[in-house]
C-alpha cells in the first residue's frame, strides 16, 4: 500500500516536473557513456574511437529513453498530453472554424443544461419537506357530481382528522387577507390561515419564536397570534431585530407576533402573514374551503390510506348528509399537487426538443470535423505507412473533438446560467420552483457527461473514417479531384439529411405552438377589455360585517366613481374576470330532477353590483338586472349567463323561472335576467355558466371593482383613491391593473413556452442550414476543376448553379420528408400543449416546410453562385 502510494507519487512528480526528469535521465546516460569511453581510452583506444565504441555498446539512446519512460508507466499520460498539445495546435491553426464549432456546442450544451436544471429542480429535487413522499394532499370527492378534487369543509376536516388511523397528523390551510393599519397608509396583506399542526407536520420551523400552539387553534383559545413571513419581516423591520411579542393591528384587531418564518417556497412564499385557523365542528359541511395535508404513518401504504379515507368520508356523509358534498376522498402526492400535473410533461417535451437542437449541433460538428479529416486523410495515411498505430490516430482525433466540446461545454454552462436568469425574469409565475433553480452539482455533472459524450460522438465518425481509409488507395488518390472519397461524402450527405430532419421536427413543434397562440388570441372573451381599470378593496369584517354597512359603503362609492368625468360605468364583483378561482356549484331548474347517474349542470357563482354588467361590457339579452343593492332587489332573483339559460331551458325563455342554487331546495331563486356569455377562468377553458347574485345578499366578500373609462384607464386611479378616502380613509386600494393586462397576463405562460419553442427551432434551422452550406461550399471547392471544364466546354453559369442547387436540395428535401414522417408520430406528444389546433394542423405543417425549403435553398444558392463565377483558366491551373 505504502509502496503503491510512493510509486504514484514518483510518477506524479516525474509528470509534473518532466523537464527535470528528462534532464536527469539524459545526464545519467551521458555519465554512462563518458565512463565507458574513459575506460576504453585507458585501455589505449584512440579518444574518438573510444566514444564511438561506447555508443555502440550502449545501443540506441533514444530508444532506451522511450523505454525508460514506458517503464515509468507514463506512456498513457504522455500520449494524452501530446494529443492535447497537438490537437490544440491544430485547432488554433483554424481559429474561425474552431470558434464556430465551440459556439455551436456552447449553444447546444448550454440550452440542454438550462432545461435540465429546470427539470432537475421540478421533477427530481425533493420538496423542501422532510420525507416528502409521505405527504399527501387530501381532497373531498363527489363521484356522483363529478367533483374529484374538492376542498374540504371545516367539520369534515375535524372528523377526518380525529377518526382516521392512516395518518400521523393532518393540517389544513386556507387563503385569507387582512388590512394592516399600523402604518401611515393602510396596507392589504395576504393572511393565510393554518391549523396549528400544519407547519410542524411539514417540518417548517420559524427562524424566531415558535409555531402556533394547539390551543391557539381552538375556539376560545388565544387566536390573535400571527406568524410573519420572511419577506414581511425584511420589509417592515430592521434586520436582526427580535419581533416576537410585537403587536400588529389586523382588520382593526390587535394581534401578537409569535414567530418569523424562514424564506422559502410554497407556504413560505404564498402569504405575508399566517394566523391560526379555528377548525370547528359547527358550520356548514358544504362550505368546502380547506386545503388539507396529511402525513402518512410509516407503515401505511397510500392504497390502504385511500381505502380507509373513502370509507370514513362515506360514514361521515351518511351521518351528516345535510349540505354535505363529500362522499369520498382523493389522495394526491404532494409533489404532483405543488408542481402540477402538466409541468413534468411540458419539461419532457422541452428536454426532447432541446435534445434535438444538441443533436443538430453534434451532427454539424461531426460534419465539420469530417471535412477537415478529408484534408487529413493523406497525412493520416502517411503516418500509418510510417507505423503509427490506428488506435493512436483515432484517439488523436477524438481528443481534438473532445477538446472542442470541453471548451464549448464550459461556455455552455455559463450560457445555461444566463438562460436560467433570463427565464426567471421572463416567467410570469407559471413555472413552479423556478426561484430555486440553479446550476448545482447535479447540473454540472450532467453538463460534464453531456460534453464528454458530445465530444466522443462527434469525433468518432470522422476518426473511424480516417483511420479506416486504405493507406495505398489514399496515397494514390489525387486528393483534390476526388473530394476525399465517395464513402466520405455519403456520410456527410447523410449527416445533413439528419440535421434537416431534426430541424423540421422542431419547426413543426414551433409552428403548432404559434398556431395555438394565434388561436388563443382569436378567442371571444365575451367582455370588453379596452379602457377598463380593475382594482381590489379589502373590507375588514369589523367595520363591514353587517349588510347595512356594506350597502352604505357600496352605494356612495359607486356613485362617486360614476360621477368622475372620464368614467362611463362602474361595478363591483366578487372575482375579477379571468381569475382562475373555482367557485362552481351544481344548479338545477325547479321542477326538473337530475336523473340517476346524471350530473347536475355546473355553474360559477359571482356576487355583483348592478353596474358590473355594463362595466365589463356584457349585453343584457332578456329581462333586467337589479335596480340597486337593497334587500328587496336581492330577493327578486339572480341574473344568469346565456349558455346556462340555454342548458336549463332549451327553447324557452328563462326569465321568471326558478332555480335551485347549490342544487339545494333551501336556496331557490328567480331568474330576472339573462346576459351574454363571458370567459371566467382563462382563455383556454371556454365560456362558463355563471350565476350572478346581488351583493345585496349581504355576504361580505372582498370586492373587485371594474371601471369603464374613456382614455387611459390608469389616469383615473388618483381620483378614485380620493373618492374612497372621503368614505373610509382606512381602506387600501390594491392590485390596480387594467383588464387588458389581465387578459395578456393570462397568456403569459403560453407565450413563454411558444417563445422557447421558436428559439429552439430557429437555432436548429440555422445550424442545419450552416451544415448544408458547409457541405455545398466544400463540394464546390472540391469540384472547381470539374466546373471549369464544364464551363470551358460551353456550359452556362446557370447550368452550374442548377447542378449544385439540385445536389443540395436533394439532401434538404430528403431530410424534410424523413422529418415530416417522423413528426407524424412525435407531434402527438404535443397534443396536451396545443389549443384548438390538431397536431396535424395542415397550415402549420405547410408553412414550416416552406420555411425550411426556403432557407435551405438560400444556403445552396450562395456556394452555387460562387462556383458559377469561377474563372475556368484559374481553376484549371490550380491542378
Amino acid at each position, binding site marked *: 500500500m505504502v509502496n503503491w502510494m510512493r510509486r504514484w507519487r514518483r510518477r506524479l512528480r516525474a509528470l509534473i516536473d518532466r523537464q527535470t526528469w528528462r534532464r*536527469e535521465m539524459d545526464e545519467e546516460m551521458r555519465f554512462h557513456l563518458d565512463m565507458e569511453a574513459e575506460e576504453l581510452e585507458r585501455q589505449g583506444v584512440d579518444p574518438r574511437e573510444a566514444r564511438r565504441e561506447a555508443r555502440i555498446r550502449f545501443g540506441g539512446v533514444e530508444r532506451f529513453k522511450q523505454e525508460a519512460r514506458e*517503464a515509468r508507466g507514463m506512456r498513457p499520460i504522455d500520449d494524452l498530453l501530446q494529443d492535447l498539445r497537438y490537437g490544440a495546435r491544430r485547432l488554433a491553426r483554424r481559429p474561425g472554424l474552431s470558434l464556430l464549432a465551440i459556439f455551436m456546442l456552447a449553444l447546444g450544451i448550454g440550452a440542454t443544461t438550462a432545461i435540465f436544471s429546470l427539470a432537475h429542480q421540478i421533477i427530481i429535487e425533493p420538496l423542501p419537506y422532510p420525507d416528502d413522499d409521505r405527504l399527501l394532499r387530501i381532497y373531498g370527492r363527489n363521484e356522483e357530481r363529478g367533483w374529484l378534487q374538492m376542498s374540504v369543509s371545516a367539520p369534515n376536516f375535524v372528523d377526518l382528522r380525529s377518526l382516521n388511523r392512516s395518518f400521523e397528523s393532518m393540517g389544513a390551510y386556507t387563503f385569507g387577507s387582512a388590512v394592516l393599519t399600523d402604518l401611515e397608509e393602510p396596507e392589504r396583506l395576504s393572511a393565510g390561515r393554518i391549523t396549528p399542526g400544519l407547519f410542524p407536520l411539514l417540518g417548517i420551523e420559524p427562524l424566531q419564536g415558535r409555531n402556533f400552539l394547539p390551543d391557539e387553534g381552538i375556539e376560545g383559545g388565544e387566536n390573535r397570534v400571527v406568524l410573519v413571513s420572511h419577506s414581511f419581516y425584511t420589509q417592515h423591520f430592521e434586520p436582526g431585530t427580535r419581533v416576537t411579542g410585537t403587536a400588529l393591528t389586523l382588520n382593526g384587531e390587535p394581534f401578537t407576533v409569535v414567530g418569523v418564518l424562514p424564506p422559502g417556497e410554497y407556504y413560505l412564499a404564498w402569504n405575508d402573514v399566517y394566523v391560526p385557523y379555528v377548525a370547528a365542528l359547527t358550520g356548514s359541511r358544504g362550505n368546502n374551503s380547506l386545503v388539507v395535508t396529511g402525513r402518512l404513518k410509516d407503515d401505511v401504504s397510500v392504497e390502504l390510506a385511500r381505502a380507509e379515507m373513502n370509507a370514513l368520508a362515506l360514514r361521515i356523509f351518511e351521518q351528516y348528509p345535510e349540505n354535505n358534498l363529500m362522499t369520498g376522498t382523493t389522495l394526491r402526492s404532494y409533489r404532483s399537487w405543488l408542481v402540477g400535473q402538466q409541468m413534468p410533461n411540458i419539461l419532457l417535451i422541452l428536454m426532447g426538443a432541446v435534445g434535438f437542437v444538441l443533436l443538430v449541433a453534434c451532427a454539424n460538428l461531426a460534419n465539420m470535423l469530417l471535412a477537415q479529416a478529408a484534408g487529413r486523410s493523406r497525412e493520416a495515411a502517411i503516418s500509418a505507412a510510417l507505423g503509427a498505430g490506428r488506435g493512436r490516430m483515432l484517439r488523436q482525433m477524438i481528443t481534438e473533438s473532445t477538446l472542442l466540446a470541453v471548451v464549448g461545454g464550459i461556455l455552455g454552462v455559463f450560457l445555461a446560467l444566463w438562460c436560467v436568469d433570463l427565464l426567471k425574469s421572463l416567467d410570469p409565475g407559471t413555472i413552479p420552483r423556478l426561484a430555486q433553480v440553479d446550476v448545482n452539482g447535479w447540473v454540472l455533472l450532467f453538463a460534464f457527461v453531456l460534453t464528454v459524450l458530445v465530444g466522443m460522438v462527434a469525433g468518432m465518425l470522422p476518426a473511424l473514417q480516417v483511420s479506416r481509409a486504405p493507406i495505398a488507395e489514399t496515397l494514390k488518390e489525387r486528393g483534390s479531384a476526388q473530394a476525399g472519397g465517395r464513402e466520405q461524402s455519403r456520410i456527410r450527405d447523410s449527416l445533413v439529411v439528419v440535421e434537416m430532419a431534426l430541424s423540421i421536427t422542431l419547426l413543426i413543434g414551433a409552428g403548432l405552438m404559434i398556431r395555438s397562440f394565434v388561436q388563443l388570441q382569436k378567442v371571444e372573451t365575451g367582455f370588453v377589455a379596452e379602457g377598463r381599470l380593475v382594482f381590489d378593496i379589502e373590507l375588514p369584517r369589523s367595520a363591514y360585517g353587517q349588510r347595512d354597512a356594506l350597502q352604505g359603503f357600496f352605494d356612495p362609492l359607486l356613485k362617486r366613481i360614476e360621477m368622475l368625468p372620464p368614467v362611463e360605468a362602474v361595478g363591483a364583483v366578487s372575482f375579477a374576470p379571468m381569475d382562475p378561482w373555482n367557485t362552481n356549484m351544481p344548479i338545477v331548474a325547479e321542477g326538473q330532477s337530475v336523473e340517476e347517474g346524471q350530473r347536475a349542470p355546473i355553474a360559477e357563482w359571482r356576487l355583483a353590483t348592478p353596474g358590473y354588467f355594463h362595466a365589463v361590457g356584457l349585453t343584457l339579452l332578456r329581462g333586467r338586472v337589479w335596480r340597486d343593492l337593497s334587500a328587496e332587489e336581492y330577493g327578486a332573483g339572480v341574473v344568469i349567463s346565456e349558455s346556462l339559460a340555454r342548458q336549463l331551458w332549451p327553447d324557452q325563455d328563462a326569465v321568471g323561472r326558478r332555480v335551485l342554487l347549490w342544487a339545494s331546495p333551501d336556496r331557490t331563486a328567480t331568474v330576472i335576467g339573462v346576459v351574454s356569455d363571458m370567459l371566467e377562468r382563462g382563455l383556454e377553458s371556454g365560456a362558463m355558466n355563471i350565476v350572478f347574485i346581488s351583493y345585496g345578499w349581504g355576504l361580505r366578500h372582498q370586492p373587485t371593482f371594474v371601471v369603464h373609462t374613456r382614455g387611459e384607464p390608469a389616469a383615473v386611479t388618483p381620483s378614485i383613491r380620493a373618492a374612497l378616502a372621503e368614505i373610509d380613509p382606512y381602506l387600501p386600494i390594491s392590485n390596480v391593473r387594467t383588464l387588458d393586462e389581465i387578459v395578456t397576463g393570462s397568456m403569459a405562460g403560453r407565450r413563454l413556452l411558444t417563445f422557447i419553442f421558436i428559439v429552439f427551432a430557429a437555432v436548429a434551422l440555422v445550424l442545419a442550414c450552416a451544415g448544408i452550406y458547409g457541405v455545398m461550399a466544400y463540394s464546390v471547392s472540391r469540384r472547381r476543376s470539374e466546373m471549369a471544364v464544364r464551363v470551358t466546354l460551353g456550359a452556362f453559369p446557370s447550368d452550374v448553379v442548377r447542378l449544385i442547387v439540385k445536389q443540395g436540395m436533394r439532401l434538404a428535401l430528403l431530410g424534410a420528408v424523413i422529418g415530416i414522417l417522423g413528426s407524424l408520430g412525435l407531434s402527438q406528444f404535443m397534443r396536451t400543449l396545443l389549443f384548438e389546433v390538431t397536431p396535424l394542423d395542415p397550415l402549420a405543417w405547410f408553412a414550416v416546410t416552406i420555411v425550411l425549403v426556403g432557407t435551405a435553398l438560400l444556403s445552396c444558392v450562395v456556394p452555387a453562385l460562387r462556383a458559377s463565377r469561377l474563372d475556368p483558366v484559374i481553376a484549371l491551373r490550380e491542378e
Partner: protein
Amino acid sequence: MATTRTDLLQGTLDLLILKTLALGPLHGWGIAKRIQQLSNDVLHANQGSLYPALYRLEDRGWISGEWGVSPEGRRAKFYTLTQAGREQLAEERATWRLFARAVEAILEAG
C-alpha cells in the same frame, strides 16, 4: 568480443541487477561493469537496456536511486536495494534456481 555477447533472457536482467546491488550501492555504469565482471565477460549486455530495467525496478520500489558523487568526483545516480527489493531478490533467486534445474534436467535427459 561480439561472439561472447549473449542476449539476456527477459527478466534475467532484473535478477542480475538486484543481485549486484545486494553487494552495495552502485551507479548505472558500475552495475553494467559488475555484471560483466561477475559473469566473466560472458554477459556483455546491450548496455543501454540496463536503464529501462533500472527505471522499472525503481518504479516498483525494489531499488531507489539517489544523486551522489562518484569516486571520480562526478555527479552520478546511485541505486540502492530497498527492503522490498531484498525480498524480491530472494524470491527471484529461488524461481531462477528452480527454472535452471528444470532446464538442466531436460538437457541431461537428452
